Protein backbone atom coordinates (compact mmCIF):
# COMPACT_ATOMS: atom_id res chain seq x y z
CA UNK A 1 0.00 0.00 0.00
CA UNK A 2 2.36 2.69 1.20
CA UNK A 3 4.30 4.88 0.72
CA UNK A 4 1.24 6.61 -0.64
CA UNK A 5 2.67 9.39 -2.80
CA UNK A 6 5.44 7.41 -4.53
CA UNK A 7 2.91 4.66 -5.18
CA UNK A 8 0.52 7.15 -6.74
CA UNK A 9 -2.30 6.54 -4.26
CA UNK A 10 -2.27 10.21 -3.33
CA UNK A 11 -1.67 12.55 -6.25
CA UNK A 12 1.49 14.62 -6.52
CA UNK A 13 -0.64 17.73 -6.23
CA UNK A 14 -1.38 16.99 -2.59
CA UNK A 15 2.31 16.87 -1.83
CA UNK A 16 2.58 20.44 -0.56
CA UNK A 17 -0.68 20.40 1.35
CA UNK A 18 0.52 17.32 3.16
CA UNK A 19 3.90 18.96 3.68
CA UNK A 20 2.28 21.87 5.50
CA UNK A 21 0.06 19.60 7.60
CA UNK A 22 2.98 17.39 8.58
CA UNK A 23 5.03 20.49 9.30
CA UNK A 24 2.32 21.85 11.60
CA UNK A 25 2.19 18.60 13.51
CA UNK A 26 5.98 18.52 13.70
CA UNK A 27 6.20 22.10 14.91
CA UNK A 28 3.43 21.59 17.43
CA UNK A 29 5.07 18.52 18.93
CA UNK A 30 8.48 20.21 19.09
CA UNK A 31 7.13 23.32 20.76
CA UNK A 32 4.82 21.48 23.12
CA UNK A 33 7.66 19.22 24.22
CA UNK A 34 9.77 22.25 25.11
CA UNK A 35 12.12 22.33 22.16
CA UNK A 36 11.50 26.01 21.61
CA UNK A 37 13.81 26.92 24.48
CA UNK A 38 17.54 26.64 23.94
CA UNK A 39 18.11 26.15 27.64
CA UNK A 40 15.92 23.07 27.61
CA UNK A 41 17.79 21.74 24.62
CA UNK A 42 21.26 22.43 25.95
CA UNK A 43 20.27 20.86 29.25
CA UNK A 44 20.82 17.43 27.80
CA UNK A 45 24.57 18.04 27.75
CA UNK A 46 24.72 19.34 31.31
CA UNK A 47 22.38 16.92 32.94
CA UNK A 48 19.74 19.35 34.15
CA UNK A 49 17.16 18.64 31.47
CA UNK A 50 17.06 15.50 29.43
CA UNK A 51 14.04 16.41 27.36
CA UNK A 52 15.99 16.16 24.09
CA UNK A 53 17.20 12.68 24.86
CA UNK A 54 13.76 11.56 25.94
CA UNK A 55 11.82 12.95 23.02
CA UNK A 56 14.46 12.03 20.47
CA UNK A 57 14.95 8.45 21.53
CA UNK A 58 11.30 7.78 22.24
CA UNK A 59 10.49 9.03 18.76
CA UNK A 60 13.31 6.97 17.31
CA UNK A 61 12.30 3.68 18.87
CA UNK A 62 8.59 4.19 18.26
CA UNK A 63 9.26 5.01 14.61
CA UNK A 64 11.71 2.13 14.14
CA UNK A 65 9.40 -0.42 15.71
CA UNK A 66 6.33 1.02 14.01
CA UNK A 67 7.91 0.97 10.56
CA UNK A 68 8.89 -2.66 10.99
CA UNK A 69 5.32 -3.61 11.94
CA UNK A 70 3.91 -1.55 9.07
CA UNK A 71 6.22 -3.35 6.68
CA UNK A 72 5.13 -6.70 8.08
CA UNK A 73 1.45 -5.85 7.72
CA UNK A 74 2.05 -4.99 4.11
CA UNK A 75 0.98 -1.37 4.69
CA UNK A 76 4.35 0.07 3.84
CA UNK A 77 7.02 -1.22 1.52
CA UNK A 78 10.25 -0.41 3.32
CA UNK A 79 12.23 -1.19 0.20
CA UNK A 80 10.54 1.72 -1.55
CA UNK A 81 11.23 4.45 0.97
CA UNK A 82 14.05 6.95 0.75
CA UNK A 83 17.18 5.82 2.55
CA UNK A 84 19.63 8.56 3.43
CA UNK A 85 22.80 8.03 1.41
CA UNK A 86 25.87 7.39 3.49
CA UNK A 87 29.14 9.28 3.12
CA UNK A 88 31.21 8.06 6.01
CA UNK A 89 33.87 10.70 6.60
CA UNK A 90 31.83 13.76 5.59
CA UNK A 91 29.07 12.56 7.87
CA UNK A 92 31.38 12.09 10.83
CA UNK A 93 32.87 15.53 10.24
CA UNK A 94 29.41 16.99 9.72
CA UNK A 95 28.18 15.37 12.91
CA UNK A 96 31.10 16.80 14.88
CA UNK A 97 30.55 20.29 13.46
CA UNK A 98 26.83 20.03 14.19
CA UNK A 99 27.60 18.89 17.73
CA UNK A 100 29.73 22.00 18.20
CA UNK A 101 27.02 24.13 16.66
CA UNK A 102 24.45 22.56 18.94
CA UNK A 103 26.41 23.41 22.10
CA UNK A 104 27.07 26.97 20.97
CA UNK A 105 23.75 27.71 19.35
CA UNK A 106 21.51 25.71 21.62
CA UNK A 107 19.16 24.84 18.81
CA UNK A 108 18.93 22.64 15.80
CA UNK A 109 17.24 23.87 12.62
CA UNK A 110 13.78 22.44 13.26
CA UNK A 111 13.61 23.62 16.82
CA UNK A 112 14.88 27.09 15.96
CA UNK A 113 11.82 27.57 13.73
CA UNK A 114 9.51 26.85 16.63
CA UNK A 115 11.63 29.16 18.78
CA UNK A 116 11.10 31.97 16.28
CA UNK A 117 7.38 31.23 16.25
CA UNK A 118 7.03 32.04 19.94
CA UNK A 119 9.36 35.03 19.88
CA UNK A 120 12.82 33.80 20.86
CA UNK A 121 15.46 36.17 19.55
CA UNK A 122 18.31 33.70 19.99
CA UNK A 123 16.39 31.29 17.75
CA UNK A 124 16.17 34.02 15.15
CA UNK A 125 19.92 34.62 15.33
CA UNK A 126 20.54 30.90 15.12
CA UNK A 127 18.46 30.71 11.94
CA UNK A 128 20.32 33.64 10.44
CA UNK A 129 23.50 31.80 11.37
CA UNK A 130 22.22 28.71 9.58
CA UNK A 131 21.62 30.80 6.50
CA UNK A 132 25.07 32.35 6.67
CA UNK A 133 26.65 28.97 7.28
CA UNK A 134 25.02 27.28 4.32
CA UNK A 135 25.78 30.26 2.11
CA UNK A 136 29.39 30.19 3.18
CA UNK A 137 29.50 26.45 2.59
CA UNK A 138 28.19 26.95 -0.94
CA UNK A 139 30.78 29.61 -1.73
CA UNK A 140 33.63 27.57 -0.36
CA UNK A 141 32.30 24.35 -1.83
CA UNK A 142 34.93 23.98 -4.59
CA UNK A 143 37.61 23.80 -1.87
CA UNK A 144 36.31 20.58 -0.40
CA UNK A 145 34.27 19.14 -3.21
CA UNK A 146 36.33 15.96 -3.24
CA UNK A 147 35.96 15.51 0.48
CA UNK A 148 32.22 16.16 0.31
CA UNK A 149 31.72 13.12 -1.91
CA UNK A 150 34.28 10.87 -0.25
CA UNK A 151 33.42 7.65 1.54
CA UNK A 152 30.23 7.19 -0.45
CA UNK A 153 28.50 3.91 0.31
CA UNK A 154 25.21 4.65 -1.40
CA UNK A 155 21.79 4.37 0.18
CA UNK A 156 22.71 1.67 2.65
CA UNK A 157 20.91 0.58 5.76
CA UNK A 158 22.45 -0.92 8.87
CA UNK A 159 21.28 -4.32 7.67
CA UNK A 160 23.03 -3.92 4.34
CA UNK A 161 26.31 -3.12 6.06
CA UNK A 162 26.27 -5.59 8.92
CA UNK A 163 23.94 -8.32 7.70
CA UNK A 164 22.12 -8.25 11.03
CA UNK A 165 18.32 -8.04 10.61
CA UNK A 166 16.80 -4.62 11.25
CA UNK A 167 14.68 -5.96 14.09
CA UNK A 168 17.76 -6.67 16.20
CA UNK A 169 18.82 -3.06 15.77
CA UNK A 170 15.34 -1.92 16.76
CA UNK A 171 15.48 -4.09 19.87
CA UNK A 172 18.99 -2.94 20.75
CA UNK A 173 18.11 0.73 20.31
CA UNK A 174 14.98 0.24 22.42
CA UNK A 175 16.83 -1.39 25.28
CA UNK A 176 19.60 1.22 25.24
CA UNK A 177 17.07 4.05 25.06
CA UNK A 178 14.96 2.70 27.90
CA UNK A 179 18.04 2.18 30.04
CA UNK A 180 19.07 5.76 29.26
CA UNK A 181 15.64 7.05 30.30
CA UNK A 182 15.88 5.43 33.71
CA UNK A 183 19.49 6.45 34.13
CA UNK A 184 18.91 10.08 33.21
CA UNK A 185 16.00 10.30 35.59
CA UNK A 186 18.42 9.76 38.45
CA UNK A 187 21.06 12.10 37.02
CA UNK A 188 18.54 14.84 36.44
CA UNK A 189 17.32 14.71 40.03
CA UNK A 190 20.83 15.06 41.38
CA UNK A 191 21.89 17.88 39.09
CA UNK A 192 18.74 19.86 39.64
CA UNK A 193 19.28 20.04 43.39
CA UNK A 194 22.04 22.58 42.79
CA UNK A 195 20.31 24.57 40.10
CA UNK A 196 18.43 27.78 40.06
CA UNK A 197 15.05 27.90 38.43
CA UNK A 198 15.02 29.22 34.90
CA UNK A 199 12.15 30.78 33.04
CA UNK A 200 10.91 29.60 29.69
Amino acid at each position, binding site marked *: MGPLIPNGIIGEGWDFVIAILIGIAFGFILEA*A*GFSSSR*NLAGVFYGY*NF*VVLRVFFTALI*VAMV*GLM*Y*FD*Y*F*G*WLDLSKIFILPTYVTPMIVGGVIMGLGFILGGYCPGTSFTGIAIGKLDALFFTIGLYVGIFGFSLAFPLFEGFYDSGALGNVTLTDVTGIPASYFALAFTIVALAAFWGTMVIEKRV*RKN*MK*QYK*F
Partner: protein
Amino acid sequence: MHIHELNPWRTLIALSIFVIILVIGFLTMPKPQLTFEKSISESVDALEESEAYFYPWQLEDIINDKPDNVVLFDIRDNFIFGQGHIPGAENLSANVLSQKDNIERMKELRDMGVTVVLYGEDELQANGPWMLYRQIGFNNVKLLKGGYSYFKAHKDDLASTKNDEGYKTGLPRYDYAKMAAPKDGAALNIESENKPVQIRRREKTNVAAGGC
Protein backbone atom coordinates in the same frame (compact mmCIF):
# COMPACT_ATOMS: atom_id res chain seq x y z
CA MET B 1 11.84 22.20 39.41
CA HIS B 2 9.51 20.51 37.04
CA ILE B 3 8.86 22.31 33.84
CA HIS B 4 7.56 19.25 32.08
CA GLU B 5 4.40 17.40 32.82
CA LEU B 6 5.48 14.37 34.80
CA ASN B 7 2.30 12.37 34.74
CA PRO B 8 2.63 9.90 31.88
CA TRP B 9 -1.01 9.03 31.49
CA ARG B 10 -1.29 10.83 28.16
CA THR B 11 1.81 9.01 27.01
CA LEU B 12 0.13 5.82 27.99
CA ILE B 13 -2.91 6.76 25.93
CA ALA B 14 -0.76 7.65 22.92
CA LEU B 15 1.18 4.42 23.12
CA SER B 16 -2.04 2.47 23.61
CA ILE B 17 -3.41 3.97 20.41
CA PHE B 18 -0.21 2.87 18.71
CA VAL B 19 -0.67 -0.64 20.09
CA ILE B 20 -4.29 -0.67 18.97
CA ILE B 21 -3.22 0.29 15.45
CA LEU B 22 -0.72 -2.56 15.51
CA VAL B 23 -3.37 -4.99 16.77
CA ILE B 24 -5.69 -3.85 13.99
CA GLY B 25 -2.82 -4.46 11.60
CA PHE B 26 -2.40 -7.99 12.88
CA LEU B 27 -6.10 -8.72 12.65
CA THR B 28 -6.64 -7.26 9.22
CA MET B 29 -3.48 -8.69 7.75
CA PRO B 30 -4.48 -10.78 4.73
CA LYS B 31 -3.83 -14.29 5.85
CA PRO B 32 -2.40 -16.32 3.01
CA GLN B 33 -4.47 -19.35 2.18
CA LEU B 34 -1.37 -21.21 1.19
CA THR B 35 2.20 -20.88 2.35
CA PHE B 36 5.36 -22.56 1.23
CA GLU B 37 6.21 -25.26 3.74
CA LYS B 38 9.40 -26.32 2.04
CA SER B 39 12.23 -24.00 1.16
CA ILE B 40 13.59 -24.08 -2.37
CA SER B 41 16.55 -26.25 -1.49
CA GLU B 42 14.35 -28.69 0.45
CA SER B 43 12.06 -28.90 -2.55
CA VAL B 44 14.99 -29.57 -4.86
CA ASP B 45 16.05 -32.47 -2.68
CA ALA B 46 12.48 -33.72 -2.44
CA LEU B 47 12.35 -34.24 -6.19
CA GLU B 48 14.57 -37.27 -5.70
CA GLU B 49 12.17 -39.05 -3.35
CA SER B 50 10.67 -41.98 -5.16
CA GLU B 51 7.64 -42.00 -2.88
CA ALA B 52 6.60 -38.73 -4.44
CA TYR B 53 5.81 -40.49 -7.71
CA PHE B 54 3.16 -42.93 -8.75
CA TYR B 55 4.12 -45.57 -11.29
CA PRO B 56 1.97 -46.82 -14.12
CA TRP B 57 2.02 -50.42 -12.95
CA GLN B 58 0.59 -49.32 -9.63
CA LEU B 59 -2.50 -48.18 -11.48
CA GLU B 60 -3.63 -51.74 -12.01
CA ASP B 61 -4.53 -52.18 -8.35
CA ILE B 62 -6.32 -48.84 -8.33
CA ILE B 63 -8.43 -49.67 -11.34
CA ASN B 64 -9.32 -53.15 -10.12
CA ASP B 65 -9.66 -52.66 -6.38
CA LYS B 66 -10.73 -49.02 -6.16
CA PRO B 67 -9.14 -48.49 -2.74
CA ASP B 68 -10.40 -45.70 -0.53
CA ASN B 69 -7.01 -44.32 0.30
CA VAL B 70 -6.03 -43.31 -3.21
CA VAL B 71 -7.71 -40.66 -5.34
CA LEU B 72 -6.83 -40.00 -8.96
CA PHE B 73 -7.17 -36.44 -10.16
CA ASP B 74 -7.17 -35.67 -13.85
CA ILE B 75 -5.96 -32.11 -14.26
CA ARG B 76 -6.77 -31.83 -17.95
CA ASP B 77 -9.77 -29.79 -18.85
CA ASN B 78 -13.26 -31.11 -18.67
CA PHE B 79 -13.74 -31.61 -22.39
CA ILE B 80 -10.65 -33.75 -22.86
CA PHE B 81 -11.47 -35.61 -19.68
CA GLY B 82 -14.79 -36.55 -21.22
CA GLN B 83 -13.04 -38.09 -24.21
CA GLY B 84 -11.27 -40.62 -22.10
CA HIS B 85 -9.57 -40.94 -18.75
CA ILE B 86 -8.16 -43.46 -16.36
CA PRO B 87 -11.06 -45.42 -14.85
CA GLY B 88 -11.98 -44.07 -11.44
CA ALA B 89 -10.27 -40.73 -11.96
CA GLU B 90 -11.91 -37.49 -11.02
CA ASN B 91 -11.64 -34.35 -13.07
CA LEU B 92 -9.94 -31.41 -11.38
CA SER B 93 -8.89 -29.02 -14.10
CA ALA B 94 -5.68 -27.12 -13.54
CA ASN B 95 -7.42 -23.77 -13.74
CA VAL B 96 -9.68 -24.53 -10.77
CA LEU B 97 -6.90 -25.92 -8.59
CA SER B 98 -6.45 -22.71 -6.64
CA GLN B 99 -10.15 -22.30 -5.89
CA LYS B 100 -10.84 -22.19 -2.22
CA ASP B 101 -13.10 -25.24 -2.01
CA ASN B 102 -10.62 -27.33 -3.97
CA ILE B 103 -7.84 -26.35 -1.60
CA GLU B 104 -10.15 -27.24 1.29
CA ARG B 105 -10.85 -30.57 -0.35
CA MET B 106 -7.13 -31.25 -0.73
CA LYS B 107 -6.62 -30.39 2.92
CA GLU B 108 -9.36 -32.78 3.94
CA LEU B 109 -7.87 -35.55 1.86
CA ARG B 110 -4.48 -34.88 3.38
CA ASP B 111 -5.89 -35.01 6.88
CA MET B 112 -7.64 -38.28 6.10
CA GLY B 113 -4.35 -39.75 4.92
CA VAL B 114 -5.55 -40.25 1.35
CA THR B 115 -2.95 -40.36 -1.39
CA VAL B 116 -3.73 -38.01 -4.24
CA VAL B 117 -2.36 -38.89 -7.66
CA LEU B 118 -2.21 -36.12 -10.23
CA TYR B 119 -1.94 -36.77 -13.91
CA GLY B 120 -2.18 -34.83 -17.11
CA GLU B 121 -1.94 -35.70 -20.77
CA ASP B 122 1.75 -36.29 -20.28
CA GLU B 123 3.89 -36.16 -17.19
CA LEU B 124 4.89 -32.58 -17.95
CA GLN B 125 1.36 -31.23 -17.70
CA ALA B 126 0.89 -32.35 -14.12
CA ASN B 127 4.47 -31.63 -13.10
CA GLY B 128 3.93 -28.00 -12.13
CA PRO B 129 0.80 -28.47 -10.01
CA TRP B 130 2.34 -31.51 -8.37
CA MET B 131 5.49 -29.58 -7.48
CA LEU B 132 3.42 -26.73 -6.08
CA TYR B 133 1.39 -29.06 -3.87
CA ARG B 134 4.51 -30.71 -2.57
CA GLN B 135 6.04 -27.32 -1.82
CA ILE B 136 3.03 -26.05 0.10
CA GLY B 137 3.03 -29.07 2.34
CA PHE B 138 0.77 -31.60 0.65
CA ASN B 139 3.07 -34.58 0.98
CA ASN B 140 0.28 -36.95 0.01
CA VAL B 141 0.23 -35.71 -3.57
CA LYS B 142 1.95 -37.92 -6.10
CA LEU B 143 2.69 -37.56 -9.77
CA LEU B 144 1.74 -40.26 -12.24
CA LYS B 145 4.78 -41.16 -14.25
CA GLY B 146 4.23 -41.05 -17.96
CA GLY B 147 0.88 -39.30 -17.70
CA TYR B 148 -2.31 -40.31 -19.44
CA SER B 149 -0.74 -40.94 -22.84
CA TYR B 150 1.55 -43.61 -21.46
CA PHE B 151 -1.33 -45.20 -19.60
CA LYS B 152 -3.43 -45.22 -22.73
CA ALA B 153 -0.74 -46.95 -24.73
CA HIS B 154 -0.17 -49.62 -22.11
CA LYS B 155 -3.52 -49.97 -20.42
CA ASP B 156 -3.93 -53.59 -21.42
CA ASP B 157 -0.72 -54.69 -19.84
CA LEU B 158 0.12 -52.36 -17.01
CA ALA B 159 1.99 -54.97 -15.00
CA SER B 160 4.64 -55.33 -17.66
CA THR B 161 5.45 -51.64 -17.55
CA LYS B 162 7.37 -52.38 -14.39
CA ASN B 163 10.30 -53.27 -16.59
CA ASP B 164 9.60 -50.70 -19.26
CA GLU B 165 11.79 -47.67 -19.59
CA GLY B 166 9.33 -45.79 -21.71
CA TYR B 167 7.81 -43.65 -19.00
CA LYS B 168 11.05 -42.69 -17.36
CA THR B 169 12.12 -39.12 -17.68
CA GLY B 170 15.38 -37.32 -17.37
CA LEU B 171 17.20 -39.84 -19.51
CA PRO B 172 18.96 -39.17 -22.79
CA ARG B 173 17.37 -41.28 -25.49
CA TYR B 174 20.17 -40.70 -27.92
CA ASP B 175 23.88 -40.32 -27.85
CA TYR B 176 23.74 -36.61 -28.41
CA ALA B 177 27.40 -36.00 -29.06
CA LYS B 178 27.60 -38.74 -31.65
CA MET B 179 24.40 -37.77 -33.31
CA ALA B 180 25.21 -34.11 -33.56
CA ALA B 181 28.75 -34.71 -34.72
CA PRO B 182 29.56 -33.06 -38.04
CA LYS B 183 28.56 -35.27 -40.90
CA ASP B 184 29.56 -35.07 -44.47
CA GLY B 185 27.07 -33.87 -46.93
CA ALA B 186 26.51 -37.22 -48.57
CA ALA B 187 25.37 -38.88 -45.38
CA LEU B 188 22.94 -36.13 -44.77
CA ASN B 189 21.41 -36.27 -48.14
CA ILE B 190 20.82 -39.97 -48.45
CA GLU B 191 17.47 -39.83 -46.80
CA SER B 192 16.42 -36.72 -48.56
CA GLU B 193 16.70 -38.10 -52.05
CA ASN B 194 13.59 -37.34 -53.86
CA LYS B 195 11.34 -40.28 -53.98
CA PRO B 196 8.81 -40.61 -56.72
CA VAL B 197 5.67 -38.94 -55.70
CA GLN B 198 3.09 -41.38 -54.59
CA ILE B 199 -0.39 -40.46 -53.67
CA ARG B 200 -1.19 -42.31 -50.54
CA ARG B 201 -3.96 -42.00 -48.09
CA ARG B 202 -2.54 -40.34 -45.03
CA GLU B 203 -3.31 -42.14 -41.82
CA LYS B 204 -2.73 -39.15 -39.62
CA THR B 205 -2.45 -35.56 -40.60
CA ASN B 206 0.49 -34.64 -38.47
CA VAL B 207 2.70 -37.64 -38.95
CA ALA B 208 5.08 -35.69 -41.10
CA ALA B 209 5.53 -32.93 -38.59
CA GLY B 210 7.65 -35.23 -36.50
CA GLY B 211 6.46 -34.65 -33.00
CA CYS B 212 8.35 -36.18 -30.16
